[in-house]
């Protein structure tokens, strides 16, 4: 079928499209060949190369959970040429997918621990995979807290799921928008993510923090987590770097001794602290 060609993509049909926020969409993709879908397996944190035939490939994490089988989802912002072409696609159209690539969040090691997910803006999608994965195995974990912020209410993604998570009763969900980003109807917090984390984080002793967001958010959140007693080994993130191949050959995601595509995208801050600032 692929004749051993490592660049051969799965053909996927766009099953459903959700407009999340201005210029941000979620696609649900299903395998056109049933047997490929049956044999496909991935773990939380892995990514893939999504292709628009005729335009090229772009890299995103898989935003759906491995506990939900039969499809994968990706959430992306329309920014460049390829995401622009992807955003033009309609339900029923065909795209390509190569993957899964990269390492995973070590969810199995987190049994019996509290989890706090901290995300900003378009960085919730890579964590959503882990959130759903842990929620689907809810009994394995103690308290689960989600702190999610965006500049404005309009820019929050997965608004329907944020509601669903809030209504479950077994997750603490705090959504926040930057001052000035609120609407009259907004019932969430107003303020920056690090401030909220400071207020609601569970005791650090038995807690894993999973952080993903714009560099400024990460920069300001880390000192708060450190103050709360989190060690770098217990703070996880997922990095992005420009990629083409996805498996350590094309060279561009190289940061220090690591390839983000092979050794990442999931890193602890103990690892990040040893990296040159080339991500």
């Amino acid at each position, binding site marked *: 079928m692929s*004749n051993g060609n490592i660049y051969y993509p799965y053909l996927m049909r766009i099953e459903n499209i959700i407009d999340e926020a201005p210029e941000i969409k979620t696609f649900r993709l299903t395998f056109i060949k049933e047997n490929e879908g049956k044999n496909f397996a991935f773990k939380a944190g892995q990514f893939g190369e999504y292709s628009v035939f*005729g335009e090229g490939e772009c890299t995103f994490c898989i935003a759906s959970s491995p506990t939900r089988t039969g499809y994968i989802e990706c959430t992306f912002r329309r920014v460049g040429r390829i995401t622009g072409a992807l955003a033009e696609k309609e339900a029923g159209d065909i795209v390509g997918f190569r993957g899964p690539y990269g390492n995973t969040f070590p969810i199995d090691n987190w049994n019996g621990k509290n989890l706090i997910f901290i995300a900003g803006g378009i960085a919730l999608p890579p964590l959503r995979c882990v959130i759903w994965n842990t929620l689907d195995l809810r009994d394995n974990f103690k308290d689960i807290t989600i702190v999610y912020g965006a500049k404005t209410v309009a820019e929050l993604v997965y608004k329907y799921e944020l509601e669903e998570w809030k209504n479950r009763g077994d997750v603490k969900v705090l959504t926040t928008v930057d001052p000035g980003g609120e609407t009259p109807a907004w019932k969430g917090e107003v303020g920056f993510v690090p401030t909220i984390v400071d207020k609601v984080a569970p005791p650090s002793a038995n807690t894993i923090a999973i952080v993903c967001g714009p560099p400024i958010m990460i920069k300001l959140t880390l000192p708060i987590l450190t103050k709360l007693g989190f060690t770098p080994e217990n703070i996880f993130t997922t990095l992005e770097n*420009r990629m083409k191949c996805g498996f350590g050959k094309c*060279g561009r995601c190289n*940061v220090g001794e690591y390839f983000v595509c092979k050794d990442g995208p999931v890193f602890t801050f103990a690892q990040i602290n040893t990296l040159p600032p*080339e991500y």
Partner: protein
Amino acid sequence: MTERKIINKASLDELFNKLKSGGKRIIAPRDKKGKIIFEEISSLKDIASDYIQTTLSPKQTVFPRYEEILSYQFENRNIKIDKETKKPVPTVLFGVRPCDARSLSTLNAVFTWDYIDTSFTSKLENTTVISISCSKSDEYCFCTSVGGSPGDTAGSDILLTHLDNDNFLAEIITEKGKAILLSAPELFSDKDKSASGGKDAPAVEKEKYLAHVKPYFDVKELTNKLTKLFNSDIWEEQSLRCLGCGTCAFVCPACTCFDIQDETNGNYGERFMCWDSCAFALFTLHTSGHNPRETQAPRWRQRLIHKFLYQPERLSVYGCVGCGRCSRACPADMNLLEHLVEIMEAQ
């Protein structure tokens, strides 16, 4: 076990004919208006003579500068991916320098660690490398500083050493080399009968015919040194002249970084990989506009540290064979050897 034979020019030409009629193409250095380029040749007389180093490396034989990795047809809203894979052409890569032969192991390490690029491996498997050792070198050569030598056999299936006008010593190094020998054993002899007195192949003192390339530094020390220099000012100083043109990567036999792009023509589309370079700003530019390597200095640092620290640590190969092409070709006259020596001396 290496076998030693003598082959003369007439026999070599005959060997080419034999290989060609056996279905092999022969790629060898040709003189194209002063630039020495690897191309298919039909006889020995097509081959460039009197050059120290070819202008371009032979890497495109196994890692083409542009190669289709997928082709497809648009059928209304459907996509049909073409199924057939191209069979590699059996190839004899003739006349490469020992440094270039050595570089094949770097390419192989990159394309086969973890995921195996079968398009690359099938080309390499179908290529027999007949190298020619160096009788001359220039001030850009530094193979002996990075583990090679003018008569190094690593990566070659057969290594020829030019003994006199008519005769070559042929060292048969691998099974592939042996297959060539066995395909035409009558063309190889144990003794060179034409020259006065004759040379006995096993007794040839090969070193006498080789260029002397002075060792400038110990590459292990360089690797070690680089672990401490990430934040040094040296990268800024050395790269001030760098134009970011990528010529160094284009001529390098061991550079492997590539890009993947799509192109369409009507209902037909193809996805291809093509050579890229860490010297380009676009190489690492994020869609957000953020660029992890914003200026030429970190790009230059990446080029060197990748070749002399990351690659040996991770893949046990160096990303440099000391061929000197990048220095010869640089439009801004950046000399890799000089820069490496400077790095060795840096505090």
